């Protein structure tokens, strides 16, 4: 809405620039639409097969390497607003979830599987794979560092 108002103001002030902007916008939209179709499909699959209670069941009881794996993959596959996940993670923390795993989970959310087609469209397959790999590595590193910064696990 805000952008529409800005564009309208631009049209009033500089119609030539607004026209050029419109052409650029249409070109970008045409290029992005196929990727959005794939995004829709992946979102549908996520809504069908994943829900927070299933993730909570496996994340709340594990520790060690398996806990890290579950934390990272749970973060990758998690969907929805981060605020909802803050609330759930807060609950799990009170029940003893390691803060390192909380941090790793939150970092892993950076990998948005349904949006990967869009990233591939703009940056290519190699870039997307390499970035995703580094995000996984840094999710673990981030979790480890956050855990160290907090002292003993479970303390905030």
């Amino acid at each position, binding site marked *: 809405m805000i952008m529409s108002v800005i564009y309208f103001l631009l049209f009033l002030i500089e119609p030539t620039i607004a026209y050029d902007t419109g052409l650029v916008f249409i070109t970008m939209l045409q290029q992005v639409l196929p990727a959005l179709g794939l995004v829709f499909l992946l979102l549908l699959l996520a809504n069908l097969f994943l829900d927070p209670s299933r993730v909570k069941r496996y994340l709340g009881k594990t520790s060690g390497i398996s806990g890290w794996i579950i934390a990272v993959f749970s973060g990758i596959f998690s969907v929805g607003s981060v605020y909802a996940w803050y609330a759930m993670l807060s609950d799990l923390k009170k029940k003893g979830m390691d803060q390192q795993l909380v941090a790793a989970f939150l970092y892993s959310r950076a990998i948005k599987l349904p949006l990967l087609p*869009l990233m591939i469209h703009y940056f290519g397959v190699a870039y997307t794979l390499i970035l995703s790999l580094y995000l996984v590595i840094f999710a673990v590193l981030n979790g480890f560092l956050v855990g160290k910064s907090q002292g003993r696990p479970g303390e905030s």
Partner: protein
Amino acid sequence: MPTKHELMPALQKTFHALLQMLPIIFGMLLLTSILVTLFPREVITQLLGQGNLADSLVASGIGSIAAGHPIASYLVAGELLSAGAGLVAVTAFIVAWVTVGIVQLPAEAMLLGVRFALWRNLFCFLSSIAIAYLVAFTLKMIELT
């Protein structure tokens, strides 16, 4: 195999999610169109295309305070890349957008602890710059082999 009872709610939820995304997508595309039209390629290259630490700091800084769906970061970053921004800068921008949450910081601090929230976001900010350089370096190595 999902039944009709499971498929319909999932379809509705997905449509709803996509409808919520569409204004963001159009808004970000329009914003990027305006930026790319108003600022010549030379300016974007000057600001974000030097491949130095300043680029990544600026890009990470902007990504850190930006809020919204991650799809917006991909759209903006992709178009900035086409317009002359460096790969390091756009990668730092994307990673900071999706990992650092200045806007969400109060909520995170309230629910997960102030010290946790501050340290986590600090490490995420530093990581965004490190990842940006690592990705660019790795891609270069792959191209050389």
